[in-house]
C-alpha cells in the first residue's frame, strides 16, 4: 500500500518546523516516528498534502530529573524509554507499559511525543500521563505553552495542540518516597492495541494513607479517561481490599467501552474491573517497598 501523494519537508529546528507549518497551512502534518501516521497514510485514512519531518530536530530526545520534575523530550523513542536506567529504577510504570506497546521494531521508531500527540485513546502512553499527572509542553507560533494533561485530550484524534504546535516535552512530578505505579493491558496478541488497559500511580504518607492517586484507562472511551470516582474514593484513606474492590467496580461502571473485534462491551467492563484491582495492588506493593 502506497500513501497518496504529498510533499516532504525536513525541519532541522523547532523554529524552522513552526515556520514551515505556518507557511503550508492546515494540510501539513508533523511526522516524528511516523508509526501512527504512515500506517494511516498507507491505508489512505490520512492524506496530508505536506509532511514536515521533525525527527531530525536536535535536543528533543532526553530523560532527566530536573527541579521537581521528570522531564522527557518528545522525540525520545519508546526503545530509549524501555532501556533507560532512571525509569527502570524509579518509574517502573514505564517499563510495564512500553513492554506492552507495539513491538520492538515499532518502538525503535515510535516516540513518546507522537504517541501522546496522536490523541488516540487506544495508545498506551496517554493513560500513563493521566495517572502520573503529566504536563505537556508545546511550542507554536506564539511561543511556549504548558498544558495540564486533563486539558490535553479533546476527542478522537483531537488534542489541545493547535495547528503548528509541536509537543516538545513531558513533565511529570518527580517520584516521591512511598510512591508506586503500575500498568497493564489485556491484548489479543502481543503487539496489539489494548482491549482494555489501566495505569495507576499512588503516593502514601508514612502512616500508609493515600495522599495522591491517579488512575488512567486505555481504549475504553473515545478520549483517554481518568477514573475520577476511583481516585476520590482512595484519596486520604488507607487503601484496603474492600476499597480496591469498590474501585474495580467503579472502573467497570464508569468506562464507556464499545463492542468491537477486541471484545464485547460486557467483556471489556469485566476485565477492566480485574485489571484495575490488580494494578492498584501492584502499585501499592511498589509504594510500600
Amino acid at each position, binding site marked *: *500500500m*502506497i*500513501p*497518496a*501523494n*504529498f*510533499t*516532504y519537508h*525536513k525541519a532541522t529546528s523547532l523554529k524552522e518546523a513552526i515556520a514551515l507549518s505556518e507557511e503550508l497551512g492546515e494540510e501539513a502534518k508533523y511526522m516524528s516516528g*511516523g*508509526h501512527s501516521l*504512515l*500506517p494511516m497514510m*498507507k*491505508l489512505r485514512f490520512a492524506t496530508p498534502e505536506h*509532511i514536515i*519531518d521533525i*525527527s531530525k530536530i536536535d535536543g528533543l530526545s532526553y530523560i532527566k530529573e530536573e527541579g521537581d520534575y521528570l522531564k522527557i523530550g518528545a522525540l525520545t523513542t519508546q*526503545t530509549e524509554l524501555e*532501556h533507560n536506567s532512571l525509569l527502570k529504577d524509579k518509574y517502573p510504570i514505564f517499563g510495564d507499559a512500553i*513492554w506492552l506497546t*507495539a*513491538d*520492538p*521494531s*515499532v518502538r*525503535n*521508531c515510535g516516540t513518546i511525543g507522537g504517541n501522546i500527540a496522536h490523541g488516540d485513546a487506544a495508545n498506551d502512553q496517554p493513560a500513563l500521563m493521566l495517572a502520573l499527572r503529566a504536563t505537556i509542553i508545546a511550542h507554536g507560533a506564539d511561543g511556549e505553552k504548558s498544558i495540564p494533561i486533563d486539558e490535553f485530550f479533546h476527542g478522537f484524534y483531537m488534542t489541545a495542540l493547535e495547528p503548528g504546535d509541536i509537543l516538545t516535552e513531558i513533565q511529570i512530578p518527580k517520584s516521591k518516597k512511598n510512591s508506586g505505579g503500575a500498568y497493564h493491558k489485556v491484548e489479543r496478541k*502481543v*503487539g496489539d492495541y489494548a482491549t482494555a488497559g489501566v495505569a495507576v500511580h499512588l503516593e502514601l504518607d508514612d502512616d500508609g494513607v493515600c495522599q495522591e492517586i491517579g488512575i488512567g484507562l486505555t481504549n475504553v472511551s473515545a478520549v483517554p479517561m481518568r477514573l475520577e470516582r476511583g481516585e476520590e474514593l482512595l484519596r486520604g484513606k488507607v487503601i484496603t481490599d474492600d476499597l480496591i474492590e469498590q474501585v474495580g467496580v467503579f472502573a467497570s461502571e464508569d468506562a464507556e467501552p464499545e463492542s468491537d473485534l477486541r471484545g464485547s462491551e460486557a467483556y471489556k467492563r469485566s476485565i477492566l474491573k480485574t485489571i484495575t484491582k490488580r494494578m492498584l495492588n501492584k502499585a501499592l506493593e511498589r509504594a510500600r517497598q
Partner: protein
Amino acid sequence: MAKHKVTMTINGQSVTAEVDSRLLLVHFIRENLDMTGTHIGCDTSSCGACTILIDGKSVKSCTYLTVRADGANITTIEGIAADGTNHPLQQAFHDQHGLHCGFCTPGMIMRSIDLLNTNPNPTEKEIRWGISGNLCRCTGYNNIVKSVQQAAKEMAKETKETV
C-alpha cells in the same frame, strides 16, 4: 511531484538516487535496488517481513519513507555475510529448521540481529517477546526460538575469540 536527492549507505555501498516523497523504503530497496530479500507481507505494519537495520536498529521498512533515510547506514539480509558464507543466525536457522516457506526469515534474522546486539544472552521469553513484531505462519515459532538460541551461543563464542 517533489523529488528528493538522497544518499545512503546500503550494505556498505553508497547509493544516491532521486526519489518521490511517498516512496517507501521497502519499495526503494526491492524495486530500485533490485534487492528482493526484504519482503512485504502485510499492509498494516504488523508482519515484520520487511525488517531491515537502520543505523543498527531493526525497522519495518514498509513504514519508513525513503527520503527520511537520507544519510542513514542501512543493512538488509543481503548484507549480513560475505557471499558463500552464512551469518551465525542464517546458519542457526538452517541447522534448527527455523524456516519452512522462508518468507518471514529475512525479517526474523534482521530483527534477531538487533535483539542479540542489545541482549546477547536472552532468555526464551525475551526471544519470544523480542520477535513479537515478526509473524511466521509456518513454523509455530519453536524452531525460530531455538535458532536464535543457537546463534546467541555462537556469537558469544565469536566475541570471546576476538577479544
